[in-house]
Structure formats: C-alpha cells, structure tokens
C-alpha cells in the first residue's frame, strides 16, 4: 500500500514536471524560434535529395544511418525472437484443437492477399512521394501474410526462402552504403542522380533503399509472426 502511494506520487510529480516544463518553455505550435537544423531540410531538402517527402529525405538520406540502425534493430529483434522461442513448440500430443476459419474468411484471403501485397509494394515504391515508406509498406506486406495465418490454421511460410530474401535485401542496403563509401568516400552517399522531384524514378538511392527496407521489414515481421505462431502449434 505504502509502496503504491509512493509510486503514484512519483508518477504525478513526473507528469507535472514534464507537462509544465513543456508548456512554459516550449509553447505549442509556436513558429520556429530557434534556427535549428531543420530549416536546411525544409528549404533545401527537395533540391538536395530529390524527394518531395521531406520525412523520407531525412530518414533515408540526411539521417540514412539512423535508418540502417533502425533496420538493424528490427533485424536483431526478429533474430532474438527466433532465438528466444527456439525449440519451444508444444509436444505433439498436447496440441490444442483449433477452430477452422469459415469459408468466407478463407476465400476472402485468397482474393485479398495479392491485392494487399500490391498495396504494400505501392507504398514502399512511392516512399519519396507520399507519406508511405519502407516500414509502412513492409507492415502492410506482413499484414497480408498475417491474413494467411488467420484464415488457415495450418499455413506456414517457407523458412529458407524467407531467410534468403531477407539476407539478400539486407545486404543490398549495406552494400549501397559501402558502395557510397567506395565511390565517394562517404558511407551511404547518394551516388545516383536525383532526377526531377515528383517522378517515380527520382531521389537517387532512396527508392532502392526503400524497396530493400520494405521487403526486409515485411519478411522480418512475418518471421516474428511465424515464430510466435509456431510456439502455439
């Protein structure tokens, strides 16, 4: 009881501290007062990178290394989930009986699955023009596979194929970075022409990286799902 109230008081203090610091010292919605780095992104971003979507310009080009790290975080987590759940499947006798999905859901998944994949592809291909991007597209692709899992209790992905895909696209990303280093002396340097903003084949290396990220994220999230499903089966 005492522990609980102390914790509550601490949390309340934290809440008040965060809120009032923000409210007093960083007025919400104020026009930019500090001349921060983002001015450069906003005013020169399109010229520098060729991407109309400034967030993409930052994520893939200016701060591309963060994104490499981010992909790595997801990769580490997917690997970690695999390592943690390794050999955890239930013994054959204790398998739980599952309700099969109804015909409607099954047939729906047959029709919608390719469409969802295409949506995902659309989103990551247009990452430099629209709010999409590799991660969002990858999430949609993983959703398509999730639909498969949901509609069929016996569905399984081909592990080797997924692992190989994941490796190839991951290495593509790393190689793009290393190529930049070899060609220009800067890791992840944009060594392709920028093209004219607003077109599909513009923004230099961004589309390549986003296609790689999209496929990779899709494969990784699916891998995580598969690992978790396997434990249940």
């Amino acid at each position, binding site marked *: 009881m005492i522990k609980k109230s102390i914790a509550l008081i601490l949390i309340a203090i934290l809440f008040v501290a965060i809120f009032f610091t923000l409210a007093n010292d960083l007025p919400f919605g104020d026009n930019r007062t500090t001349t921060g780095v983002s001015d450069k992104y906003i005013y020169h971003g399109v010229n520098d990178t060729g991407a109309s979507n400034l967030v993409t310009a930052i994520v893939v080009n200016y701060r591309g290394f963060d994104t490499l790290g981010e992909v790595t975080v997801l990769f580490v987590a997917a690997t970690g989930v695999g390592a943690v759940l390794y050999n955890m499947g239930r013994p054959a006798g204790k398998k739980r009986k599952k309700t099969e999905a*109804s015909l409607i859901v099954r047939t729906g998944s047959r029709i919608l699955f390719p469409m969802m994949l*295409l949506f995902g*592809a659309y989103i990551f291909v247009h990452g430099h023009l629209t709010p999409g991007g590799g991660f969002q597209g990858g999430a949609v692709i993983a959703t398509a596979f999730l639909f498969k899992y949901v509609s069929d209790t016996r569905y399984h992905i081909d592990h080797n194929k997924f692992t190989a895909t994941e490796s190839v696209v991951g290495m593509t990303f790393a190689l793009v970075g290393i190529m930049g280093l070899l060609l220009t002396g800067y890791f992840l340097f944009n060594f392709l022409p920028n093209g004219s903003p607003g077109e599909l084949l513009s923004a230099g290396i961004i589309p390549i990286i986003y296609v790689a990220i999209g496929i990779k994220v899709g494969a990784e999230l699916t891998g995580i799902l598969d690992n978790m499903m396997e434990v249940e089966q």
Partner: protein
Amino acid sequence: MTAGNVSKYVYTAIILFLLWIVLTSTFFWEEILAGLVLSAMVAAMGYSLFTDKGLGNFSPKRLAYFLVYIPVFLWDVIKANLDVAYRVLSPKMPIKPGIVEIHTDLKSDIAKLGLANSITLTPGTLTLDIDDDRLFIHWIYVRTTDIKEASEEIGGKFERYMKVIFE
C-alpha cells in the same frame, strides 16, 4: 472446371496491373513499368489461389452481368438501408430478429463468397456461417422461417447474378 496455371497467372497479373493503374492514377511510363514488374512478381506469389477460372473470367457475358449487377446491388443496399434506418429511428424499434437457414445452388467458393458478402452488405441480413450449401443468416425482421421461401427472399436475386458471374 479450373483453368490452367498460365491462364490463372495471366489473369491475376492483369487484375493486379489494373489495380496498380487505379492506385497511381497516372500513365507515366515509369509508373507503368514499375506496375508491370510488381504485378508480375506479386502474381507469382498468389496466382494459384487468386482465381479458379483464370482468363475465363473475361468472357463478355460475365462482364456484362457484372456491370449490371453493380447498380442492382447498390439499389438493393440503399433500399434495405432505409428500411433498417426506419427500424432504428422509430421509437418502438419494430425488430423481430432470428437466425434462419437458407440453401444455395452455387458451387464455387468465390461465388459463395460473393453471395455471402452481398447478403451481409444488405442491411437486415447477416451471414453467420456457411457449410457447403447451407447458409445461416441472422435476419433483423424474420418474415419466414421456411428454408425455400427464405432462400428466395434473401439471396435469390443475388444468386442468379453470381451464378453467371463466377460459375
């Protein structure tokens, strides 16, 4: 009944490519190229399940029926919607819900999906489950419990179209 793999694949790729064109809504050559490549790739992953008929779906009769079906269906939906709206709005709530069983002659899964979805989308009726040719429908105002009559009342019209479009 089912078509060959090539036919299925080509059909899937064409549908996906059309989808891509609608998504991007441009005819810029780079987009078209990307669309071709991606729909070819995606079709390879899902063509075997996407369709039963393959290119056979493009027969003029089917397309014509499909085009006619859309307004018919929409009109039905709106009519039924107004009916449900009346039931929801009226203070007494004149509803008489129940689950009835109906039968269908449709054979292919996709046709059944179309029928079930049409029934579900029409307010007042909701597909609860399908088992072979038996459909269980939750009906907001049960007019009849007889299987034959209910079949005609709920799904008859849709079924005739579905039979041509998907079978």
